Each structure stands twice: as structure tokens, then as C-alpha cells.
């Protein structure tokens, strides 16, 4: 097996037993990036020199931490001190943060090796990386298709073996959907579990930073490194964070699993529905209690999400005015033009559309009709989940209605593109932890199964995911991009 195929735990053993130095491992990954990056297009910025330097420091003075010496990548909306952070927008094309996001600092403390910043939809607004100002990211399983999004670069880089794991952000499915499309494990933690300090805001009441890895154990390892209270994030929750790898056994006897019938209808491909139903049957055989339930309000999650996310995005993006940072139209001779022209030049079409729509639903005439209505719908969606969780431990659904789609497949049909998020958005609306795990292949493309948990019960999700993973070898499959195997 090649180094670029290995999991964090496998690589970690090699590092700890001194079978390979961090510099050797880093160079192997950089070589892999050289080989496949042109096909995949996962990176916006590579940090080769910094990586070699960090690896050298580790080799010189090694620490015994689970992620030490392991190469990783960060979605490019996570601020990195001294390393350009673009949000895949012309607006931040030259932006070099003066501080690290909390999660970036956490991985640096682990002495991980940052290989670069990964592509996304502009300001994480999209589900395909097609709104990136730089390029779309291809799906390593089929280069004619897209990696998904918005954390498409984060998923493709892991699938292609360019990094061992990555961090992404998830507002409506942006970690789980690309993880599903790329055959990986993706976790969006409970709202408030992971600090968002330095993660550039899209929709503040929904955004969470999370993890993309090759298997469930790795996911637990990375979550260990980034979870926990941060006084610099006012939405960070003060709770005792467990060791997510402790007692992770895959024993799920007696686990009460619910599957909501609404998530197995809609427009979900029958092949995906069949695979998830087969998984449910397997869970039963492993000793779980599986029951059908109903989440009748989930179908209102997507329209409510359109309103709430656009409203919050328009507010969050008001800060980009060309003055303190970001692109500036230097020709403007008055402040109003400076703002309006800088924003016109810096933002792409999808971002502008969302800002305008946000301004609309927040305006005095339409606030009650749209924004207030959406927030009330959100309550109903949230309470729906609470009701199901009174008698069940986790909820299982497909992650996405289809497998990975092609470029421009939805060019003239924005609403159908947005529908990609239909199974993941309700989880963000309710602030719950959600996870996608590989559950098989359809015509050579990976499909994902979504596990949804009670607030802060990530451990239960990880354990249930591990139970399924142990019964299969989907997680061992790697796309063929050339190179030795």
C-alpha cells in the first residue's frame, strides 16, 4: 500500500516507530500532489515550503500527539496566519490573515503538517465548487464529474491521496455531500462543539467546522483535536468533551435507529434508497432496533433555508467594503461608489444573488412574510427531530439524492442544483450532529449514508458508523488516478 492511500492511524504508527520521518512522508504527499493535482484541482494555495519546514521541526523535536507529522489540508475559508485565505473569491484573492482560526491553531499544536488551502464554492455558497472564482474541483472517482461542495476541495484532496485528512465547513451539507460524492467519512459536529473563531462566516446560525477523513477512527482522532470550548467564539458551548476514540468498539446492540420515511422518497435515486435500506437491515442483524418514523416538517427545511441563509449571508458579507481588507476599486472618488464598485468587482454571481435576496427578505415590507415565517418553520423542523429522539438514539437517511453530478448539469436550473442539499439541510436547521459514511457504489460512483444524532452525541454516531464500516470494505476503496498501487 502506498503512503497516500493510508489512514491517519496507519501513518501515525509509521511515524511513531520511526519507520518514516515526517519530512519523508511530507515529500511523498507533495509528490502525489504533483502527480494528480492537475486532474483533480483541489488546491487553491499550496504550502510546500512551510510543510517541509514544519516536518523538519517535528523530526528534530518530535511530540507524541495523535496527528503529529500527518499531512492535512484546510478549506480555504479557514484563516491561516501568514497563508493566503481566499474563500475562493476575488474579493479575498490577496487576503493574508494576521491570525489563525482556532481549528487551524489546534492542528498546528498537534504538529500536523499543513499542505495547503483547499477549493470551495465562493464563500462556501454552493454545492459543486462551480462558484469558485478559481476553478471547479473534479471528482477523483470520475474526473468528468464534480467533487461536490462547498467543501469540494477538502473532499477531493483526501480521496485523491493529496492529504491524509482535511477540515471543511458545513452550512447546509457542505461537508457531508462532498464526502458522500467522494467516498469518504464526513462529520458536521453539533452546532457549538467546534470553535468557529477565524472560520469566515457564511450563515452564522448554521455554520459548523468539521472533518473529512478516510475512515471513522480517523474522524474521531481529528474531532478530538478540534472539539471544545473557545472563549473567542461566543457560540462555543461549555461542555466536557469526551475522548471520541475511547470505547469506540462498533458494538451497537440495543441501539434504537429511526429512519424517516420522507427521506426515502422525494427525488432520491432508488439505487441509493436500496443501499441505505440494506444498511438498515444489516444494523438490525448487528443487534440494533430499527423503526420507521416520520419527520413531516423536513420538507420545509429547504425553502426556510433559502430565506435564513440568504438573510444572514447578506449581513455577514456587509463587511466587505474594500476598506480594511479585500478587493478595492481604487477609481472610486466617493465612499458609496467605493463600496458598491468594490463589491461588484469582488463578488461572483451566486454571492451577489444571495446578498440581494437576503436584503429582500430582511426589508421592512417582507420581513414577516419571509424571514419571520422561515424562523417559525425552523422551530417546527427542530421540534420534529426532538420528538423522534425521545424514543430513538440516531436517525439514518441517505446523504444525497444522487451520486456525483457533472459540470454544468444544472446550469439553467438553479433550484434543482439547490435540491442537492434537501437531505442535509434539516440537520443544520436543527443544530444536530450529522455524519456521512460510504455505503457502497452505484455505477462506479460512491454513495453516502447519513447518520444524525442528538446534540453533542457525536460518540454515538461514530460508534454506529464504525459498526457499519467494520462489516464492509467500502472505506478501503481508492479511486484510480494513476500512480503505483
Amino acid at each position, binding site marked *: 500500500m502506498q503512503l497516500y492511500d493510508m489512514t491517519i492511524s496507519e501513518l501515525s504508527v509509521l511515524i511513531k516507530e520511526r519507520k518514516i520521518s515526517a519530512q519523508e512522508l511530507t515529500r511523498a504527499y507533495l509528490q502525489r500532489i504533483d502527480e494528480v493535482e492537475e486532474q483533480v484541482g483541489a488546491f487553491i494555495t499550496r504550502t510546500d515550503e512551510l510543510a517541509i519546514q514544519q516536518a523538519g521541526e517535528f523530526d528534530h523535536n518530535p511530540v507524541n500527539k495523535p496527528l503529529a507529522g500527518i499531512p492535512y489540508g484546510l478549506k480555504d475559508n479557514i484563516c491561516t496566519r501568514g497563508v493566503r485565505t481566499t474563500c475562493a473569491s476575488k474579493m479575498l484573492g*490577496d*487576503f*493574508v490573515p*494576521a491570525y489563525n482560526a482556532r481549528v487551524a491553531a489546534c492542528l498546528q499544536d498537534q504538529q500536523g503538517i499543513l499542505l495547503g488551502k483547499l477549493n470551495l464554492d465562493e464563500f462556501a455558497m454552493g454545492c459543486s465548487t462551480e462558484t469558485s472564482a478559481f476553478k471547479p474541483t473534479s471528482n477523483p472517482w470520475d474526473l468528468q464529474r464534480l467533487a461536490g461542495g462547498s467543501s469540494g476541495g477538502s473532499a477531493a484532496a483526501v480521496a485523491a491521496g493529496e492529504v491524509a485528512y482535511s477540515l471543511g465547513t458545513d452550512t447546509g451539507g457542505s461537508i457531508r455531500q462532498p464526502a458522500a460524492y467522494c467516498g469518504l467519512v464526513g462529520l458536521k459536529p453539533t*452546532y*457549538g462543539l467546534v470553535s468557529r473563531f477565524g472560520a469566515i462566516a457564511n450563515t452564522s*446560525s448554521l455554520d459548523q467546522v468539521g472533518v473529512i477523513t478516510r475512515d471513522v477512527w480517523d474522524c474521531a482522532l481529528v474531532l478530538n483535536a478540534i472539539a471544545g470550548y473557545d*472563549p473567542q467564539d*461566543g457560540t462555543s*458551548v461549555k461542555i466536557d468533551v469526551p475522548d471520541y476514540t475511547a470505547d469506540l468498539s462498533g458494538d451497537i446492540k440495543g441501539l434504537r435507529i429511526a429512519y424517516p420515511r420522507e427521506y426515502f422518497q422525494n427525488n432520491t435515486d432508488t439505487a441509493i434508497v436500496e443501499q441505505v435500506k440494506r444498511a438498515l437491515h444489516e444494523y438490525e442483524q448487528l443487534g440494533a432496533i430499527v423503526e420507521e418514523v416520520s419527520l413531516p*416538517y423536513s420538507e*420545509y427545511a429547504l*425553502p*426556510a433555508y*433559502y*430565506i435564513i441563509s440568504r438573510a444572514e449571508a*447578506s449581513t455577514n458579507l456587509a463587511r466587505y*467594503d474594500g*476598506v*480594511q*481588507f*479585500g478587493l*478595492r476599486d*481604487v477609481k*472610486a*472618488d*466617493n*465612499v458609496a*461608489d*467605493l*463600496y*458598491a*464598485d468594490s*463589491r*461588484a468587482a469582488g*463578488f461572483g*454571481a451566486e454571492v*451577489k*444573488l444571495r*446578498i*440581494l435576496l*437576503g*436584503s*429582500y427578505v430582511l*426589508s421592512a415590507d417582507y420581513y414577516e412574510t*419571509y424571514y*419571520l*415565517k*422561515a*424562523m*417559525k*418553520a*425552523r*422551530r*417546527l423542523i*427542530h421540534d420534529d427531530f426532538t420528538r423522534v429522539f425521545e424514543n430513538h438514539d440516531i436517525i439514518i437517511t441517505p446523504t444525497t439524492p444522487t451520486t456525483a453530478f457533472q459540470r454544468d448539469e444544472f446550469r439553467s436550473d*438553479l*433550484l434543482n442544483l439547490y435540491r442537492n442539499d434537501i437531505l442535509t439541510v434539516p440537520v443544520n436547521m*436543527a*443544530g444536530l450532529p450529522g455524519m456521512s459514511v460510504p455505503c457502497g457504489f452505484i455505477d462506479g460512483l460512491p454513495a453516502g449514508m447519513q447518520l444524525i444524532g442528538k446534540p453533542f452525541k457525536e460518540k454515538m454516531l461514530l460508534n454506529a458508523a464504525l459498526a457499519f464500516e467494520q462489516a464492509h470494505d467500502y472505506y478501503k476503496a481508492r479511486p484510480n488516478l494513476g500512480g503505483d498501487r
Partner: protein
Amino acid sequence: MALTIKKVEHLAILSRLTLTDEEKESFARQMSDILEYADKLNQLDTENIEPMVYILPALNVFREDEVIPSTPREELLANASVAEDGYFKVPKIL
């Protein structure tokens, strides 16, 4: 409900965005489509439902008023396109 170009122009002013004519047309069309879909929410009876502004209990977050180091001014000014004498520079306002 179809959005007029005039409405989009007004929103562009509120949003501080200069738009081209083509953009105004395509945004008017796309926004109308999205709002029409969002009208689905009107099927819901939300008469006595408390809006959910936030998923967590809305509490003020306080900290001790202690002096801690802040990011150096030069580093922050380095990201501004135009800065002068330690300040951000903007066109004349008054």
C-alpha cells in the same frame, strides 16, 4: 410573484452593489424563482409558533475586562489596499 428590475435596482442600493443590466435581468428572474419556491412555507400554520432565531439558548457571553495583547496594527493594515500613517484611507466623506 415576479420581481421587477426596479425592485432589483433598489435592493442593489440597499446591498451596496453596482449591477450591470444583464445582472439585473438574471437576478430578477432567479430571485423570483426562489421566492416562488419559498412560498411553500405559506402551507404551514405558524400561528402560535415562536420563531427560532437561534439554536442555543440566547445568553449574553461575558468575560473579565482584562488587557490582553491584540494583533499588531501594521499586520492588520497590511491587508488594506490603501493605508496611510497607520490608518485606513477612504475617499473624502465631508
